[in-house]
């Protein structure tokens, strides 16, 4: 049972997080920041595009370095 649970967790982690945990963590942080800005009645639509402009190059740099 414990082994089955561990392998189910590993598959879920692979499926959702994938090769680079930084991407998943960045997306969650970006959405949380967007939510916080919106709650404070500040325009927040620009935040995710700006985050992508940073997150994609950072993740690519990590991948290239690893290879």
């Amino acid at each position: 049972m414990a082994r089955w649970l561990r392998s189910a967790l590993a598959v879920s982690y692979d499926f959702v997080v994938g090769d680079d945990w930084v991407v998943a963590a960045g997306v969650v942080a970006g959405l949380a920041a967007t939510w916080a800005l919106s709650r404070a009645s500040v325009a927040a639509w620009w935040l995710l595009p700006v985050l992508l402009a940073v997150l994609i190059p950072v993740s690519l740099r990590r991948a290239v370095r690893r290879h």
Partner: protein
Amino acid sequence: MGAAWALFAAVFLACVVEAVEATTIVLAAGTARDWRSATSGLTAALAALAVIVAVLGPAVSAIPLHALRLVVGALLLIFGLQWLRKAILRASGHKALHDEDSIYREQVESAAAQPASGTGLVPDWFAFTLAFKGVLLEGLEVVFIVLTFGANQHDVGLAAIAGICAAVVVAAAGLAVRKPLARVPENTMKFIVGIMLTAFGTFWGAEGAGASWPGSDAALLVLIPAIALFAVALVAVLRRLPGGLAAARQAGRGAGAGSPAGVDAAAGGRG
């Protein structure tokens, strides 16, 4: 109208990619083992998918739209960035191209090595299981794409038509050639799908978190080309880095030995 076309194109292309992978597995099971068992596996998987759609469809549309957009937006954005990241690495030469031909050969070799056993409609359980698993897993991804894209854009019908069109086109092509669909530019399509998923994920994720886009749905028509241009620019930059296509070509020319192994195939390959 523009957003409807973007929805159709995103769902169609994403489903074509999944359908090509499912078709490759069914063709390998049929060719290497037994066509009747592979067809039974395919039919059983389609029946299982129909049951899942009947159960999940109403459940997805019952979830509040903001919560759905936040969760689906976050997942699509993470998936989209993973696809886009791999597509940029492949296009710039930092990762091997996805090759449906070699995947097919591996599947055929591994299938041929297994002993056969079965009866009646399923003379070969291995071929049945291989086709069933392949179609069910890829089909689940198609169902997820159709239901979430459709529910978010209030047009499950259009998303379903796009998904069905993709599956029919790929299945017909697969049946016609009875070989892996090597000419489908899968790497290029994965690049486009990565851009689409990232754009839709950004749009829905931000809306789900409470933000309002200037121009509402029309913002997608700016987001998609902007992400595409950014991705193409990143490919150009990465190609110049050590290990990239342009750097490898230059090194090849400098050594006077022509193009290094694999680089020409990558440059002129499918994607």
